[in-house]
């Protein structure tokens, strides 16, 4: 209890309590806005408010709890290191799987203005990483050219519009909030617009993507 009294006392003394209360309110508003509008900017704002609330309350307390700053800094450093190591491992795993370019892919690269790399694996994979779209041969051999185009369109949306995964995961970890929800719905809608809804639907079905029936439903 001592700590709790000290906590509120220090905050009141410094006049920070009002600023913090406003920040908490704003963070909650951002969270609601995010759930209503599904725009990741709101989640980003919420995470920044959370980080601000945590750091400023630690800094203003000052009553023998100063070491908390170091604990929090430690958490930040560990988060960055962990995610950095993870990213490095992913990069290393990639480097020996990529094969030289393929003709039908260069047409898509030109059409969407993106770089596409081919993974020499039988498993089904399609994702973006460091501004590059990766597709596996296992995926391409199951789809018709128009369906591959739909997949590339979907990934192009992620590349252009989706927030940086690395930064958002660090922000989520150090603000003790959650990761952004992926904007699969918007990516699907974009893909349906540029390459035809039926092509995207067929691709989702053939690849047996998780929740594909729900995603197909949302498109119609």
């Amino acid at each position, binding site marked *: 209890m001592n700590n709790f009294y000290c906590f509120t006392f220090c905050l009141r003394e410094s006049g920070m309590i009002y600023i913090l209360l406003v920040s908490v309110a704003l963070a909650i508003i951002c969270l609601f806005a995010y759930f209503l509008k599904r725009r990741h900017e709101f989640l980003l704002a919420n995470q920044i408010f959370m980080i601000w609330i945590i750091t400023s309350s630690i800094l203003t307390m000052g009553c023998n709890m100063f070491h908390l700053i170091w604990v929090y800094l430690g958490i930040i450093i560990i988060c960055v290191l962990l995610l950095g190591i993870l990213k490095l491992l992913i990069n290393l795993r990639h480097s020996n799987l990529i094969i030289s370019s*393929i003709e*039908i892919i260069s047409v898509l690269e030109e059409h969407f203005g993106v770089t596409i790399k081919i993974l020499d694996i*039988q498993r089904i994979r399609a994702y973006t990483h460091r501004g590059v779209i990766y597709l596996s*041969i296992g995926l*391409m*051999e199951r789809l018709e050219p128009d369906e591959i185009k739909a997949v590339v369109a979907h990934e192009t949306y992620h590349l252009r519009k989706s927030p940086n995964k690395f930064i958002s995961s660090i922000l989520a970890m150090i603000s003790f909030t959650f990761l952004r929800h992926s904007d699969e719905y918007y990516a699907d809608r974009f893909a349906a617009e540029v390459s035809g809804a039926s092509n995207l639907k067929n691709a989702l079905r053939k690849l047996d993507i998780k929740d594909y029936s729900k995603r197909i439903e949302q498109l119609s």
Partner: protein
Amino acid sequence: MVKIERISLNKQGLTKFFSPNEARIMKVLWELSHSTSAEITRECKDLSLPCVAGTLDRLVKSGFARREIDQSENRVRYIYYPTGDRREIGVKISERIIESLIDTFGDATIDTLGKINGRRKNE
């Protein structure tokens, strides 16, 4: 080098050294000499494409099949080949097993092989 995941001496034919799906797919590969995952799925009607693709992947990793990337007809796909005919694969599996037996039992295995060979010559 070929990798044998398991040996089940109580099973029949190729399934002593391969899973039932692997054995069926190896037979198709020997029959057609090369094939795509879609073609094999057509041959083995009760297997799904993901199952065939996964099994082919395992056969490549264990050294019984290899694959090349084919870009004809404006599509991309793998073409799978067996790494040897039935006899050649038989030689590879025998080598692996005998080496492993010698590794464990030494002279006992070599003597036994000599005896079996002698018996076969007499027959």
